[in-house]
């Protein structure tokens, strides 16, 4: 893909996408809205303190060469310009996975590098080997920690806990700051858009109401969440082979207990050091009809991940989560795993 000529007037290079051509062929090509992208821009080049003045702040950004348009629908605007009602925002919430240990419900990414460190194991316990053992039990016996294994379709088991918040240590994680920097400026997420590979994941489980993540009376924190199947699942518009669904969110009520404290102990319970926004909790249900050949085609078979002699089959996939109001996003690597079978 070549760069566009930027030596003269500003020109526009427009192409139909694959989907556009398909819609054209079907006779239902109808454009009703637009969005704006800036994928090529590295805002790190913005020098807001340029010694020659503000006219030079974006000198390098404006010289960014732009690539020609792609025809794949998911390769053009991965990160777009967004509109917020207020123009005085200084902070935008980001999203992170909470892997704290205060609650046994919280799943953590694997720390065993050789076994796929950094990924979340999603154990398919419906698949057993000749001994009839469930995958998650054998994994834990092998060396995986219980906290690192998410059990497929478990409604009262471990969950992927996702938070939004401001990762700025100069802002205290108080309720007042939560209101000032998140709630009152319309950045509190009441729901989250979850995108998952429909070839391997049948459904997403999200909070069913009454979810609570808050300081506890004993000075710690508590997580209460019951999961159920999310609704409004539909085909993803921008990712091939993906479906998207809506998971409910709730206000994260973990705050710095005493605003005058030097140390903020609440960081033991939240992924963010600054004001927290919303949270959601997720689990995934592995499709029951994944075949052994799918593991061969899309994943790996017979891997001795822990050097224990027990072998596993697995498929790696990615889960995308996006806040409905904050537009904050996170990509979570997921490893669908089961005991080896033939």
């Amino acid at each position, binding site marked *: 893909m070549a760069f*566009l000529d930027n030596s003269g007037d*500003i*020109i*526009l290079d*427009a*192409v*139909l*996408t694959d*989907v*556009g051509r398909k*819609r054209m062929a079907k006779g239902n*090509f*109808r*454009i*009703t*809205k*637009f*969005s*704006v*992208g*800036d994928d*090529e*821009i*590295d*805002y*790190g080049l*913005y020098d*807001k303190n340029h010694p020659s003045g503000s006219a030079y*702040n974006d000198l390098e950004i*404006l010289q*960014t060469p*732009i690539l*020609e*348009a*792609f025809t794949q629908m*998911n390769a*053009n*605007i*991965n*990160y*777009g*310009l*967004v*509109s*917020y009602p207020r*123009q005085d*925002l*200084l*902070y*935008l919430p*980001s999203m992170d996975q909470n892997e704290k240990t205060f609650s046994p419900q919280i799943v953590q990414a694997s720390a065993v590098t050789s076994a796929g460190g950094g990924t979340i194991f999603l154990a398919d316990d419906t698949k057993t080997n000749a001994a009839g053992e469930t995958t998650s039990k054998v994994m834990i016996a092998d060396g995986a920690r219980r906290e690192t294994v998410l059990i497929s379709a478990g409604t009262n088991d471990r969950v992927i806990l996702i938070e939004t918040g401001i990762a*700025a*240590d100069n802002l205290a994680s108080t309720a007042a700051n939560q209101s000032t920097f998140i709630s009152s400026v319309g950045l509190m997420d009441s729901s989250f858009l979850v995108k998952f590979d429909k070839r391997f994941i049948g459904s997403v489980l999200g909070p069913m109401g009454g979810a609570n993540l808050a300081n506890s009376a004993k000075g710690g924190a508590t997580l209460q969440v019951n999961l159920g199947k999310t609704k409004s699942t539909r085909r993803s*518009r*921008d990712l091939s082979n993906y479906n998207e669904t809506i998971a409910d969110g709730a206000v994260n009520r973990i705050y710095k207990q005493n605003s005058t404290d030097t140390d903020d102990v609440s960081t033991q319970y939240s992924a963010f050091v*600054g004001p927290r926004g919303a949270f959601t909790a997720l689990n995934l249900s592995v499709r029951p009809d994944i075949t052994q050949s799918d593991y061969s085609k899309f994943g790996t078979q017979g891997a001795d991940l822990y050097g224990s002699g027990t072998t596993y089959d697995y498929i790696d996939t990615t889960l995308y989560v*996006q806040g409905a109001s904050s*537009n*904050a*996003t996170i990509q979570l690597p997921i490893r669908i795993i089961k005991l080896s079978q033939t």
Partner: protein
Amino acid sequence: MPVSYEPLNVNTDVTTTKTILHEVIPLTGSIVSGTYSDQNIKNFVHGMFQSVYDYPYLSSSANHIFDLTAGYDESSVLSSSANVQNSKKINLYNQFSQVLLGYTGSNNVVRLFENDLTLDSTGSIKNAMIISFSRLLTKDQIKKGSFSLQLGVGSYDLPHNETVTLQDVSASTTGDGTTSTIGGDYGVLYATDGVATGSIDYATSNGPAYGVVFYQAGIAILSSSVFDQSASAGFGQFNSGSFAGDSSGSTGDHPAIGCSESLSSTSISGTCDALRHRITNLTFNNSTEINSTIYFCRLPVNKFNYSSNPTYTSGSKLVVKNNASDLPVSYATTIGLYNARNELLAVAKLSEPLKKTPENELTVRVRLDY
């Protein structure tokens, strides 16, 4: 994909236009005959026409540019069952005339090509050499009034020492000077420039007519009279020696012969070879009708001022601001056009980033051509 969408109002933000694009198509005679030693000429076993490419046709770089063939009506004096490929020559003439002119009378007699715009059975072209241009060259149609074919009318060995230029001088893009038939519009090819030779003064600015050009079909019909009517040097040598081929495309040893004799006594490909040998220059403008939909994508002052680009924040703080009171700024590089189901149907890329702040409003005009 965390982006904001802005609706397009079909009444105020969308419009359609039609533009005509013309390209100049110049073909020099050396391409048609000479440069590639006829490796760009494809003959077929059936011997009914000859394809001309702009490069040796076995190369994947070659483009088909036109086909050549020749024929006559069965009422022509040349028609004889003793002729080489007599029935094929008649069939080819009929095929082009029925497609381009259709039939006439209660007996559905196929019309004959004529050297005029009236189709009144006078000035008939009964012996024709036909150039059928590839759509790659003509696109939607040949631009009326732009067709020019310069032919060498000198001796066989030096054909381009004397030339005549045939042009559709009376035709105009408004349709004046053309006639509409079932095969589209056609204009008459007049001799407009050349040498005074024999009984014909080719130098006349609007001289005799020697053929017609069908604009939409991209077909030029040349009357054999363009070569036959002069007794000057070379006209008895329209086709000569090894240049006259047989139906299989191989060469033969014909004596020097005139155009009519070539049409009757040599193969179709042999006559095509001789015609190519005499094409000095060929030029026309093609036309492409472009229907466009223009979308005015308006970025108002209070929208699209932030970005979800991961580099836009550092520690959740906007990298383009020092204080909350500073204006946000973003840089647009791409416009995505969506349907109601949020499916990305078209993408437009700007050649350089456009700065967007709450102090400016941008209107990006995206044109989709069909």
